[in-house]
Each structure stands twice: as C-alpha cells, then as structure tokens.
C-alpha cells in the first residue's frame, strides 16, 4: 500500500520534473547574456587561467568554495561529535583486519604514486582538469589504501588537524589579503602571468593548493574517524 502511494507520488513528481526539463531542452544554449560567457572570456583575458571551472570555483565563486570546505570541515567535526564515546564505552571490535603481504607491499608501492598524482592534480588545477578537490580526494584515497591494508597504520591526528586548520586559515587569509590589497575579499591580487604557464593565474593556484591540502586532510579525517569507530 505504502509502496503504491509512494510510486504514484513519485510518478507525479517525476512527470512534472521530466516535463520541465524536457521542455527546457538538452544540448543547446538556453539563454543569452548569461554569466558563463563573461566567465569564459575573463578567465583567459583577466585571470590567465586555462581551466574555466577552476577559475569559477576558486575566483568567481570562490566564496562557495570557502563554504564548501567549511562544510567538509564541519562534517569531520560532526563525525567526531556524533561518534564520540567516553573511554570506558569503547568496545573491542574493530572493522580492520590485516591484509595479505601482496596487498601490503603493493599498497606500499602505490601509496607514494597516488599521493604524487594527487599533488600533481591540484598543482595543475588551473591548467588541466582537476584541482584542489580532485587532488585532495586522490590523496585521501591514498591514505584510505594505507589505512585499509595496515591494521595498525595510523595518521597522526594532530598533524591532520594542523594541516586542515592551516590550509583553511591560509585560504581565508589569502582572501583577507586580497581584501587588503584590492578592496574585496578573495581578490586576485597577484599579477596573473601568462596563460598556460604553471605559475599563472595569480592567487588561484595557491588557493587551490590550499583547498587540496584541506580537502585531503578533511577526507582523510572522515575516513580515519569512521574507520576507527569500534563497535
């Protein structure tokens, strides 16, 4: 009964949503004089950033990104709060168990490579696809691999939160520097340089690297917290 009602409801909802979106149409520009044209133009001319998505994420809509890393930060905090137990309540059962030696040695080999990849991705965020989020997540996957294979592998929590905090402070701090230099928060106050150079885009790569560190640390924190949750 409940299922039927839900299906009917969802059907109606789906009908209207689908109707709307089909009507909007797919694969052609829907509007004129949108902001995207300006973005595409300014990212080359003003910011000298070849990846438009990066320039949007970090500069045009950098405020969103600040909020977003905050969301992740809060998620880590929330996880700690929600899963918090007093010492005597902590149980014995762990989700972890040791892996075979092939896996362990393989992971050992892979780990630096993954980290390197992550770093590469976020350093080149303004040039190629990828950036802070992607690089950060890749780094987190690297740590995840290590955490899964080595039962006793532990990330230094202090370092983690230090990285996280410092990266966050750097992000906001750079924003404030922009405020002092250019009058607006997150202003790109460094000379953008030449398009497609590694050192181009002014503060954008710096911020994105910070985002990378922060996201990496936060996601590792999430994994770490959940993984060390003992029933």
């Amino acid at each position: 009964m409940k299922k039927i009602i839900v299906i009917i409801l969802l059907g109606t909802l789906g009908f209207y949503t689908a109707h709307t979106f089909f009507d909007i149409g797919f694969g052609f520009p829907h509007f004129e004089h949108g902001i995207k044209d300006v973005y595409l133009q300014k990212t080359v001319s003003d910011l000298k950033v070849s990846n438009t998505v990066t320039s949007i994420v970090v500069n045009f809509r950098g405020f969103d990104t600040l909020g977003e890393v905050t969301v992740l930060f809060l998620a880590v905090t929330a996880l700690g709060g929600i899963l918090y137990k007093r010492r005597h309540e902590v149980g014995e059962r762990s989700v972890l168990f040791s892996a075979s030696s092939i896996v362990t040695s393989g992971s050992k080999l892979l780990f630096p490579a993954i980290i390197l990849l992550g770093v590469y991705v976020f350093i080149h965020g303004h040039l190629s696809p990828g950036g802070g989020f992607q690089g950060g997540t890749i780094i987190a996957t690297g740590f995840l691999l290590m955490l899964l294979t080595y039962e006793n592998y532990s990330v230094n929590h202090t370092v983690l939160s230090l990285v996280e905090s410092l990266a966050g402070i750097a992000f906001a701090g750079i924003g404030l520097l922009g405020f002092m230099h250019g009058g607006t928060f997150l202003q790109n106050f460094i000379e953008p340089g030449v398009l497609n150079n590694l050192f181009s885009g002014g503060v954008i790569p710096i911020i994105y690297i910070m985002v990378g560190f922060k996201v990496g640390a936060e996601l590792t924190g999430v994994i770490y917290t959940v993984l060390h949750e003992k029933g």
Partner: protein
Amino acid sequence: MIYFILISVLVVLIIGAAVYAIRQKDLLYAVIATGIISLILSILFYMLQAPDVALTEAAIGVALTTIIFIITIRNTVRFEDERDKKDKFKSAVK
C-alpha cells in the same frame, strides 16, 4: 553512432545499477552498486565534457563514499531485513 550506443549502454547500466542498489537485500552488494553508479556517472560526466566533475565523482563517489558505507555496514548489520536473515540462517542450520 557509437557515441550514442555507448551512452545508451551506460544509461541502461546506471539505471540497472540504481534499481539493483535499491532492491538488493544484501547491503554490501547494494553499496557496491552505488559505487558502480558513481563510476558510470563519472564516465557520463566525462562524455558530457565535464572532466573536472568526472574526476571528483570518480574519487569521491567510487572510492570514499563506498568505503564509508562499507565501514558502516561492518559496524552494524549486513542485511536489510535483520530478522529475516537471522531466521533464514537458523533454518539453514536446522
């Protein structure tokens, strides 16, 4: 044409995976199915000319989300209908 077929296959796969994820009683498989959804999604993103999104989705959706789901399942129960499963085990033992 190939492009079209590829997308069709992906679309069918992703919907299949979604249905499977919802219908599967074994939560572990369901979670794997969500991982597959994310994987196909990232391919779709790539085909929709969104490489950044594809990268993110691949890393977060496939790896991280799946793993925290799995950890949760290991910390709680594996099957959707806890009671049923226990009974089934019991009957199987008998």
